[in-house]
């Protein structure tokens, strides 16, 4: 049992946004994790990007899903009630294309969830996304506007692409955010050597980026706010490193693509480590 934002979570192993849909499928996994971060939700429904959307790289993957989702209305109507039956600890990953959109999505959902994760770091959309997250002023502005519309905890999901997450993180906290999560995917590119043009441009994730993610999380400890550590966590040992580096909890991303049951294993392994075993 851990406590963040004065809310109790059954354990510090969460599922990162985008890799588990809405948690409706492997229900015993959804049920067992500390919290679920939903796939990114936009104001209007989105089809997402054309394929290829996933490509494997050394110890990692590049994804370019492009925020495929049914939009906030449909999410609230038909999905949210079903998730809540499985696990009540839900953070909705909010992806706006304008400052106002973030606020609208948050307002639409209201206090039906545990909190919000403002996604200002998606590298897979043409507008918004990572461009907001690279700019401390923009990021703070989004937090300020959203803050006025909700009392639920606001976590800001940071990027470390071409910007310092400490600077952006500080700006967000000063603007009223309650916590930070990082890192979102790094930029990544693979070329198609036959066609001689890019095969996929998207976000790099997986164990490949773990040492960099850990560095970023460790860097944020001076802010003394709750941080959710994300990036390449595959085992309880990896999760433990993030906790030692200052994270209050961790979120599992790519590991779930390799094994949908990975969170269950990680919860167990971490528990053993926290109890002093090995």
């Amino acid at each position: 049992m851990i406590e963040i934002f004065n809310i109790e979570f059954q354990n510090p192993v969460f599922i990162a946004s985008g890799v588990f849909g809405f948690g409706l499928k492997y229900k015993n996994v959804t049920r067992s994790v500390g919290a679920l971060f939903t796939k990114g939700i936009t104001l209007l429904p989105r089809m997402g990007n054309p394929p290829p959307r996933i490509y494997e790289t050394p110890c990692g993957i590049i994804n370019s899903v492009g925020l495929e989702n049914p939009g906030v209305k449909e999410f609230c109507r038909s999905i949210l009630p079903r998730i809540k039956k499985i696990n009540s600890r839900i953070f909705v990953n909010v992806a706006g294309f304008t400052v106002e959109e973030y606020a609208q999505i948050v307002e639409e959902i209201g206090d039906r969830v545990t909190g919000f994760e403002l996604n200002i770091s998606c590298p897979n959309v043409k507008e918004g996304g990572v461009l907001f997250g690279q700019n401390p002023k923009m990021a703070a502005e989004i937090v300020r506007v959203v803050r006025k519309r909700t009392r639920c905890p606001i976590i800001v999901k940071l990027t470390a692409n071409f910007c310092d997450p400490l600077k952006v993180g500080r700006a967000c906290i000063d603007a009223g955010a309650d916590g930070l999560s990082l890192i979102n995917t790094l930029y990544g590119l693979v070329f198609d050597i036959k066609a001689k043009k890019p095969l996929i441009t998207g976000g790099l994730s997986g164990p490949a980026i773990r040492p960099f993610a850990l560095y970023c999380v460790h860097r944020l400890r001076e802010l003394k706010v709750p941080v959710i550590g994300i990036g390449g966590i595959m085992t309880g040992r990896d999760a433990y490193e993030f906790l030692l580096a200052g994270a209050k909890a961790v979120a599992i991303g790519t590991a779930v693509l390799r094994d949908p049951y990975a969170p269950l294993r990680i919860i167990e392994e971490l528990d053993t480590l926290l109890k002093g075993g090995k």
Partner: protein
Amino acid sequence: MMWHLVKIINKEWLSRDIFSMEFTLHGLKPAPGQFFQIRINESYDPLLSRPISIADYEKGRLLMIVKIVGRGTEILSKKKTGDEVLIFGPLGKKLKIKNKKSLIIAGGIGVAPLYFLAKSLKKARIDFTFVYGARTPSELVLKDEIKKLSSRAVFITETGSNKAGTALSVLNELNLAEYGAGYACGPRAMLVELKKMNLQFPVYAFCEDFLGCGCGLCLGCAIKYKGSYKRICEDGPVFELKGLEFND
């Protein structure tokens, strides 16, 4: 749907770069089109599992037929009889076969899931023609089995001595009006061509692509079907060819 640690009870080379693996795994009720995600190794490189179709399943014996096309299948090919493999599944929608005279069109390694389909048709006593094209004669695997199984079987290769061509070039010789359903699996280019032929009966295409999770979670396996993106792994892998939009 879960992980199974299965032992290879028989591994065989069917051609220079195609091999089969047989496992014992009881209690499945798989249908054609379904597949497993195979864990390539315990290291994180390659990181993701690889999807391989059920090529046959009978009395607890599961058959897979794999062609080496890259690193994952290369590593897999080094496994020997007696080695253990972690597989996750069965995944994918169960295809409901039509009770109509059927045309099976296999291009290359596309034969793998269609072999299981053919056996299912046979079991349901549905008459079918099996057209199977490959690049060279030695790449035509399971030829004898398919011959035995099918009411009619036509084999063709691109380097064929008397007659050269692809699976699709054979279709012109058939009386297509006879058939009430088609099933196709092969390279994307074959499916694209086949769609253009605009056959008068429904054709079910077995789609193969690079997958992420393989089980409906990550939205990484999009294919455009009737105007929106579907997941190959969960909504497919079999789709009616007419609805597929290849954009090329």
